[in-house]
């Protein structure tokens, strides 16, 4: 299992930061070559803002017009404010059944 590197708990801006775990699935997992990573982000970051940060880090994410985002195993509003230790899942439209 691949994981992101650990770094200081203080973000570049010097303000308070938190860590969240990001899990990737299906085609996104294949393309990024990792199934999860730890990400440091400013306290109060929303789900949609985190996804923008992830797209800035992983340019390949721009290939997906539509992704689904979940927090701690539940679909959440993009305005949802994340908390320390939250598990965010990023995945393409589903195809079970």
């Amino acid at each position, binding site marked *: 299992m691949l994981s992101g590197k650990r770094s200081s708990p203080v973000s570049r801006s010097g303000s308070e930061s938190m860590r969240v775990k990001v899990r990737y699935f299906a085609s996104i997992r*294949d393309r990024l070559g990792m199934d999860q990573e730890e990400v440091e982000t400013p306290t109060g970051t929303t789900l949609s803002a985190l996804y923008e940060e992830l797209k800035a880090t992983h340019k390949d994410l721009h290939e997906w017009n539509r992704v689904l985002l979940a927090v701690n195993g539940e679909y959440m509003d993009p305005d949802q404010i994340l908390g320390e230790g939250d598990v965010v899942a990023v*995945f*393409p439209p589903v195809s079970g059944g």
Partner: protein
Amino acid sequence: MIVVTKEDFSVDEVLNDIRSKEMGALVTFVGVVRGHSEGRAVEEIEIQVYEEMAKAQLEAIRREAMERYNVEEVAIVHRYGSLNVSENIMMIAVGAGHRPEGFDACRFVLERIKESVPIWKKEITPEGDFWVEGEEHGRKS
């Protein structure tokens, strides 16, 4: 009854598990691996699942279907891992007093699974491996 498993399942066992004297209909849907897709031959498929979330979503869909259609019981079994052509992928069984609500609930469960449960298929073909994403087929692995 919600099961997410690598193993194959027995349709009879699932039906016997939910059978009760209130039921006059056991409506069953079994999804299996089709040997072609989008003009390509499919050799096998691989199913990936976000297991914790999928189980919770399936349970929520089961409860919603039972309430909305007033059926007695809903069982959902979904497999993951590598599956050969014609193998079982998943099964929905609805135990209902009468057939109309049984059929309606079964279709409702299937459509909800297809839109919201975090499970994905990858088709292994002679032309390469392709992920299925919603209605779209074709992102190369």
